């Protein structure tokens, strides 16, 4: 696929996209490293390769919009402005984490940023996301909810139950299908009767669009269109993001279901960060030195996050029995 070379580039915006995508990439690399050192346990699903999706879509959000996703959630949290320190500390199961160590990689939330997790059951976040949109509809505001899910979740029954209700009730929900080609080890071809997931809402009258999820500007444009549709009360919208994950499904996945060459080819030809870097440099929007300075700044943030996480103590043992129920007032 040819790399996007847009004539009219908003250099400041593109630099910001570059910065945000790089933060996710470096953060995830560090998380992988800490996992290898035994500082992060359990399941850890890295977002490397898919950074353009959350960064591009967040560009169209406004205060009060909500987002919810699956367990591959680190990128979403960083993109909506959650603190990398709190995210990394949660990955390490420490007191300083967003869930005070009780959620882990798959379960983090931020009321402040309207991030509703971090959900471990494939597809369950889809009706929940429509429920967030329902709240917007009920309150009569023009906020929208982003429900992210993968090509694997796209085969869950509750997704279609949700499509039906979201369309029936005109809920302001953007269903973002992050099609990274593999549901754990099962390729889309082996799991889906049709290759085009963006058409999956057609039976319910939901418009859908296929987007190059490796091109942050294309993502941004598609997002803006979907958001405008939802905000104007026209109901839900589906965006299928054509993307790719570079790492395994989780840290313990040897990824034998695809070839090294396949991964390498995507990295070389479609990498979302390199793509933007090329545009910035070739268009003389930024110098190598400018980008190096950003790299350096990001590196500092990520190291600080890792330091914070490793220095943060494990939760106090009294935490075992807290946060099960809310106090009745």
């Amino acid at each position, binding site marked *: 696929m040819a790399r996007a070379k847009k004539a009219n580039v908003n250099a400041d915006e593109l630099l910001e996209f570059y910065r945000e995508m790089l933060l996710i990439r470096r953060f995830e690399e560090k998380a992988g490293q800490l996992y290898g050192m035994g500082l992060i346990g359990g399941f850890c699903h890295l977002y490397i390769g898919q950074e353009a999706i959350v960064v591009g879509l967040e560009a169209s959000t406004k205060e009060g919009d909500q987002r919810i996703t699956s367990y591959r959630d680190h990128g979403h949290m960083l993109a909506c402005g959650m603190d990398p320190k709190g995210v990394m500390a949660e990955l390490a199961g420490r007191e300083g984490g967003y869930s005070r160590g009780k959620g882990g990689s798959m379960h983090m939330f931020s009321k402040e940023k309207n991030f509703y997790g971090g959900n471990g059951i494939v597809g369950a976040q889809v*009706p929940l996301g*429509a*429920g967030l949109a329902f*709240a917007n509809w009920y309150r009569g505001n023009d906020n929208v909810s982003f429900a992210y899910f993968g090509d694997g979740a796209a085969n869950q029954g509750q997704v279609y139950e949700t499509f039906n*209700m979201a369309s029936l009730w005109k809920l302001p929900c953007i269903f973002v299908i992050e099609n990274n080609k593999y549901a754990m080890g099962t390729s889309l071809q082996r799991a889906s009767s049709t290759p085009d997931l963006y058409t999956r809402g057609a039976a319910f009258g939901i418009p859908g669009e296929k987007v190059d999820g490796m091109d942050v500007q294309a993502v941004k444009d598609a997002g803006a269109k979907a958001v405008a549709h939802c905000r104007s009360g026209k109901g839900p919208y589906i965006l299928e993001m054509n993307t790719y994950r570079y790492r395994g499904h989780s840290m313990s996945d040897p990824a034998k279901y695809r070839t090294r060459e396949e991964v390498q080819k995507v990295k070389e030809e479609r990498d979302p960060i390199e793509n933007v870097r090329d545009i910035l440099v070739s268009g003389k929007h930024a110098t190598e030195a400018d980008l190096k300075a950003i790299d350096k700044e990001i590196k500092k943030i990520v190291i600080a996050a890792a330091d914070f996480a490793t220095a943060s103590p494990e939760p106090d043992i009294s935490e075992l029995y807290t946060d099960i129920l809310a106090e009745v007032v």
Partner: protein
Amino acid sequence: MAINILMPALSPTMEEGTLAKWLVKEGDTVESGDILCEIETDKATMEFEAVDEGVIGKILVADGTEGVKVNAPIAVLLEDGESADAAPSTAAPALVSAPALAAAAPVASTPVEQDLPAGTTFKSQTVREAIRDAMSEEMRRNPDVFLMGEEVAQYQGAYKISQGMLDEFGPRRVIDTPITEHGFTGVAIGAAFAGLNPIVEFMTWNFAMQAIDQIINSAAKTRYMSGGQMTCPIVFRGANGAASRVGAQHSHDYASWYAQVPGLKVVMPYSASDYKGLMKSAIRDPNPVVFLENEMLYGRSFDVPEIEDYTVPIGKARIWREGDDVTIVSFGIGMQYALEAADKLAEEGISAEVIDLRTLRPMDTDAIIKSVKKTNRCVTVEEGFPVASIGGHISATIMQEAFDYLDAPVINCTGKDVPMPYAANLEKLALVTTEEVIAAVKSVTYR
């Protein structure tokens, strides 16, 4: 030959009904399929059609008669040429006699332990009305409370719980869903995460198995997983357990399933006053509350206190009847058997203390232990399956906390360890019975 037209049973649990209006008169010729009359049950008004053709000889039950028992003759149908005198029976139908269920209702229809101000007056209300009033009161009080479920709005509720609510609150707050439990439960939970207060009606809890992942993995666990950031103020409610002759897939009691899950509160009331007070508390509670109702109790009347904004705290049992010889612990429809048994045991000089748990999670084990320390014996009663039952948990708790006070092993009276059979005789055997409770009490009291 003249035949009697009998009062029909129009639902699995119907015992009696009101003959609202005749659409034929004496002397009219009717054909199969003609509408004879309108019959009102506690759930709906239904048209009753003729099966046989003939001439209406005599109308035995007048328009507007209430409490007409199922199978009572309501009219006589004559064949061509027959005279009205040929009627097989003109015996007056059994009118307004108490239905079978009410006849079996225990003597003690109000509990001894009432935490009410002096001078409180009561009104008789069905469980059905109590639930509706509780929901409506809370919806008037808080604009963020809404009701969602199958047939809750235009149909007025499959069991008529939400009757009239669409008219009062409109379609934004009383929402008919498609038949899509997994989906709409998730949608409601998402709305609760966003700060609304949904009430989700499951037509019955059997269908909530489609949605149990959302109830447990999303509603119950998110607060903990978020380190206390998220709240999920939601009520899941509907008919639970056996109704009557509806077979294995529509008769499951889920009390012990949900009571096992941290992050949920689980309520299963018996009386209308507790349905009302606990429903209001459940709607106000900032946590997910599983509210297990019972179809057999929907039409049952109890005294409900006439108190403005009447609430009952979640997590508190109530002593329904005081006694010294044995403690019978039950909840929900099980209370019917417990109270009947206590009445009969009293005649034999055995004094049973009956505790209505009302809430299963958090369970008021203090109330049980306190009573067992007094009576030294305990029998539990529930309709659910015996393995990993509520009674099993109570037994273990008593063993750990009051072992030295026990004079006999605790006996758990439960439903039988079989899927619910359809045949009337087998269904009766599969449910817990009053006789079994009496036998258990005699066993633990060595009588």
